[in-house]
Each structure stands twice: as C-alpha cells, then as structure tokens.
C-alpha cells in the first residue's frame, strides 16, 4: 500500500524523475505480468462458476438437466422454478425470520462488545487483566458443543419453535469483545478520556461521547461479520425452530422432498444467495478491509 506514492508512472518510465528511481531495487514494486492476472482470473472464475452454474441449472427445465453436456447458458424457466420454490417453502416468512434474527444478534453483539471492549481498553479496574485473559481463552472454546443443554433450556422455557430461541446462544461473543478491545486500545488516546472526565462527564457520558464515536468504524465491521455469521448459521436454527425456519433452514427443506428436483433446489439456492450478494455488492470493500484489519489485529 505504502508503495503507491512511490510508483513510477508506468512501464515507460520516460517521465519518471531520477530521484524516485534511484534506490529502488529491481523486482520490488514492479507491475506483475500477465501470468499473475491470468492466475487471478482463473481463481475468480473458479469462485464464480459454481454460482453461475447454479443459476443455469435453476433456470433450466427438469428434462434439460439430464443431458450429456452441462448447459452453459441459462434457460427460460427460472421464474417458473422460483414460483415452484415459493409454493414449496414459505420463502418470505423465512427471509423475514432471518432478517429479524440476524439484526437482533448484530445489535446485541455490537452493543455489548463495544461496552465491554471500551472498558477493557480504556478503564482501570481490579482484575482487568485476569478477565481479559478469560475472554481470550474462551475465543478458542467451541461453544457450539453445548447444544444439548441449550436445547433442554429452550424446551424448559417453552421457547422451542420461536425465533427468540434461535437468537439466544449468539447474543454475545468473546470474539466481539476481543475485537473491540484491540481496536479501541490504540484508537482512543488516554488523554481524551481524561479530558472528558476533567470536564465533568460521568463515566457513561465519556463512553457515549468519546468511546462510541471512536469505535464506529470497528462497530461497522463487527456488525457486518456478526450479521453474516448469524445469517449463515444452520445447526442451531434447524434444531430449535425447524417449524419456524430461517432462510437457511427453509432452503435445506427444499431438498428433503422424496424426489429431489435439482432445478427447484438450485433456483432456491440462487434466491437465498441474492440477499448476501447484494450485501457483497454494497459492502464488499468493507468486507475485504474488515477481514484484513481483523487479521492484523488478531
């Protein structure tokens, strides 16, 4: 990234001022050749083709599928197949459930993580380092393995079948706290917190007026990934509320018919992928920078 400003204008180098070329060793910052782009295109096509293929299959009629050669271009039956999907599963109700579940989980995780992360990053209290070690230790704990007691709890409370039960296990995550703490510890200068305190702000006011504004970029990233994780979750919603399915559960139900019609299943897969594809188009850059930021911090 830092090399951008030092780049020579192009392969021509005719206009390159001598001083920028002077100490630049060969082989660094050189524009990569066709091979690099070719390989990247190959990887991109490998990533995109299964999606394209699912659309092609989902738009074909059942008979066309059994041909010897896989069709490369979409057929004309996509809308008919989608109509079939809608008559098999309650797509819109499932979509609504997924939106509600993912949004509530996101708000909860981001809110509690910011609060706790701020406290760990900027406040002084006894036992802080011990508690933080605890948070870090739980990062690697597979809490998913607690599904049996969780299921028993939900049954006891009579919550099974409700989307409320779907949200419960992921309302907070250790990762969220860790992530916010790592971000805030560098981003907020201690002087700023102290200045707010000297000006008479209470602790919560300081959090609200100093902590939250500074945390906003990290909150957005954490929110994005929490939303995606909640949206893609399958095991727990399938267990606790199959009769009130999220989109993933409903989608999997397309497949459970005795006779699996691939065109219908694929049309459903395409429909279920559209929301996240939209998210990708709108926030793909943020996803990329979020993954890369998380890596450096983690």
């Amino acid at each position, binding site marked *: *990234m830092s090399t951008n400003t030092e*780049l020579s204008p192009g392969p021509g180098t005719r206009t390159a001022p001598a001083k920028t070329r002077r100490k630049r*060793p060969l*082989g*660094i910052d050189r524009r990569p050749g066709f091979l690099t782009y070719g*390989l*990247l295109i190959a*990887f991109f096509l*490998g*990533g995109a083709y*299964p*999606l394209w293929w*699912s659309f092609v299959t989902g738009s074909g009629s059942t008979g066309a*599928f059994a041909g*010897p*050669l*896989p069709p490369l271009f979409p057929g004309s039956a996509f809308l008919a197949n989608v109509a079939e999907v809608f008559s098999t599963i309650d797509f819109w109700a499932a979509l609504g459930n997924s939106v509600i579940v993912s949004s509530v989980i996101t708000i909860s995780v981001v809110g*509690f993580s910011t*609060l*706790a992360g701020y406290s760990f990053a900027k*406040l002084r*209290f006894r036992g802080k380092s011990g*508690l933080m070690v605890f948070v870090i230790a*739980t990062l*690697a*704990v*597979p*809490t*998913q*393995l*607690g*599904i*049996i007691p*969780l*299921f*028993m709890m939900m049954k006891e409370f009579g919550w099974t079948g409700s989307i409320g039960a779907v949200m419960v296990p992921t309302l907070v995550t*250790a990762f969220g*706290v860790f992530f916010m703490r790592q971000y805030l510890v560098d981003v907020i200068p201690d002087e700023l917190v*102290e200045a707010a305190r*000297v000006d*008479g702000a*209470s602790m919560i006011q300081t959090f609200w007026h100093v902590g939250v504004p500074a945390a906003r970029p990290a909150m957005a990233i954490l929110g994005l990934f929490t939303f995606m994780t909640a949206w893609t979750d*399958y*095991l727990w919603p399938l*267990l606790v509320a199959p009769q009130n399915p999220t989109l*993933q559960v409903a989608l999997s139900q397309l*497949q459970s018919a005795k006779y*699996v019609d*691939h065109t219908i299943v*694929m049309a459903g*897969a395409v429909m*279920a992928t559209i929301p*996240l594809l939209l998210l*990708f188009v709108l926030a*793909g850059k943020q996803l*990329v920078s979020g*993954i*890369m930021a998380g890596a*450096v911090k*983690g």
Partner: protein
Amino acid sequence: MTSTISPPSGPAQKHGPRAGKAPATPEAAESPRPRSTLRSRLGALDVKASPYLYVAPFFILFALVGLFPLVYTFVVSINDWDLLSGAGEWVGLENYAAELTDPYFWNSLFNTFSIFLLSAVPQLIAATFIAALLDQNLRAKTFWRMGVLLPYVVTPVAVTLIFSSAFDEKYGLINNLLQMLDIDPVGWKSEVLPSHLAIASMVNWRWTGYNALILLAAMQAVPRDLHESASLDGAGALRRFVSITLPGIRPTMIFVIITATVGGLQIFTEPKLFNPSSSTLGGPNREYQTTVLYLWDLAFNRGDFGKASAVAWLLFLIIIGVGLINFFISRSIASADAKHHAKPGRAARRAARERKSRRAHEPAARHSAAHDSKEDPS
C-alpha cells in the same frame, strides 16, 4: 482524573436529587463543601463501578448461553439421560467408556479429521499462493480482492446444495464431465475418499479467498525494507518469498490454522445436506458421518442425551488438545528457528554476504573519500 475536581455540570445533573439531600445531614452543615464531598463520593463510585458494569452484560450472558451449557453437558454426560424421559441414573464415566469403544464414534472421528485435513492443507497452500499473487503491485487491487472473496457470501447451506447437485452420481456436473473424458463416474456420495474430497471441496471453495485476504494483510505488514535489502543482495522473488514473507506471516498462519481447526472439527452443514436421499445421517454406511453429525444423530434421532453429551465433551477435549498441539508446535518451530539463526552456517553466510556488499560499496566509499580529501584543501 477522578472526579474530585468535577465541576457542577456532569455528575450534578446525574445525581442531582440525591446530592440535594446532602445539606440536611448534620455533618454536611458544618462544612462549606458537603455537596461536593457527596458528589465526589458518588463520582468515585461511578469510577469504581462503571468498568464492571460495562463488562458485566457480556460476562453474564456469556456464562448463561456459552459456558453454562458447556459445563452442564458434562453433567448430562455422566447420567443415563434420555431426550424424552429426562435425567436417569448416575452412571459415572460409562457413557465415555461406551463411546470410546463404539466403532461409529471412531468412524466419525476418522471422517472428521480426514475431511479437515483434505480441506485445511490444500486451502492453506492455495490461500498463501493467492495472497502472494495479490501482494504484488496490481492494478485495480480492490477488484481482485473482492473477486477472491465472492464465494464467502454464499452460505454453507447454499454451497452444499450447489455442490451436492454437482456431485450427483447419476446426473451431476462432475460425473458428466468425467464421462466426456472417458473416465468412469465416481461414487461421490457412496465411497469414503470421494465423499470426503467432495465435502472438502465445498469448504475450500468457500474459505480459500477469505483466508487469502487474512494472509495478504499479514504479508503487507512485513517490513518493506527487508524485501528491498534482500533484493539488493540479489535475492530473487522466490527466495524473498521463502526467506522473508513466509517467516513474516507465520503468526498469522498459526491464527488461520487454529481458527480452521476449531471450525473444521465441528463441520456439520456440509455432511448433513450432502446426500438428502440417504436415510442414515452422513451417508448410507456413514462414509462421511462427522463427529458433530454423529452427536446430532445420537441426541436428536436416538434420544440418548447422555452418550451424545459424552461425545460432545470428547470432541471438546480433542479440539482443545489439537489447539494446544498447534500452539506448541508453532512455538517450538519459532525457537528452533531462533537457534537456526544462531547456527554458524547461517551466520557465516550472512557475514559473507555482508562482506560482499561491503566490498561492493567500498570503491564508492574510497572514491568519495578521495573526493573529499581533494576538496578539503581548496
């Protein structure tokens, strides 16, 4: 930074009513500044209690929905617990003994590790390779980065439906292509290794780009000067990659490996939905029944919560164990590396390199010295 010097604005508003009562007390009447004392006491309480209040929601919720279930799983596992009739007799470690001698349990572990290795190893290699491609001075960087991330937005359920259809034994895309090439169709859903490959390919497809971006970030954090000086010393791109980039991204690599382990050993969605027409979860003969799938089958199809909980705890211990092994291996690699650096061979080589580069610079230095001495008199 404490609130002894707090002006009236902040805490006064917040604790207004209570602070107002202060003058009524006898001690308060003696002193001219009783309000500020009480206020400062409240302020001190605010300072002391707030940090705990802020972390409390997380810890309480996490204890309830994360840790308690995990611990309670152990309680269930030492009882003869049934889905319908509930808690039965205390059986000690019998459930564990039963599972550890159950071939289906070992089969599920084998499948889990096989799928995990088939996905983790090629994925890590491919991700490193892609990251190295992306780490160059590309045009339209963001476009390529988004490009490799595309599969990540397809949910595992959708991925499995798509790949399950492609790997269909009779009409699937893959077998059709194989037949075109005159290769016998493969039993993707009825044989052990092919089914593991198919499931690993789903994981790889979705996660390779994601991990490539993580590794790319680590590569970009490797100091530029190292590359430049190595390049001056005549190291080519491959040599720089092996000697500078790879050691530089090792911590991140370990992070990726540990995350992949924790996730990979709990794989569920892909084997669950891979073959819907199989009446047994995980293939007609449990060819790809992973441990979480086995646990699910035990608990919710057969209703044996006790044994399923024992499986959950065994898997839990295995995941923690593998994580620790990862950790220690990476640490010993790091320390062995430090020793390696201290070895005479490497040191001698470096010294030789330095001598060489000094020699390369020397003429210039001598020249400039001569130049200086010439200029000095004038």
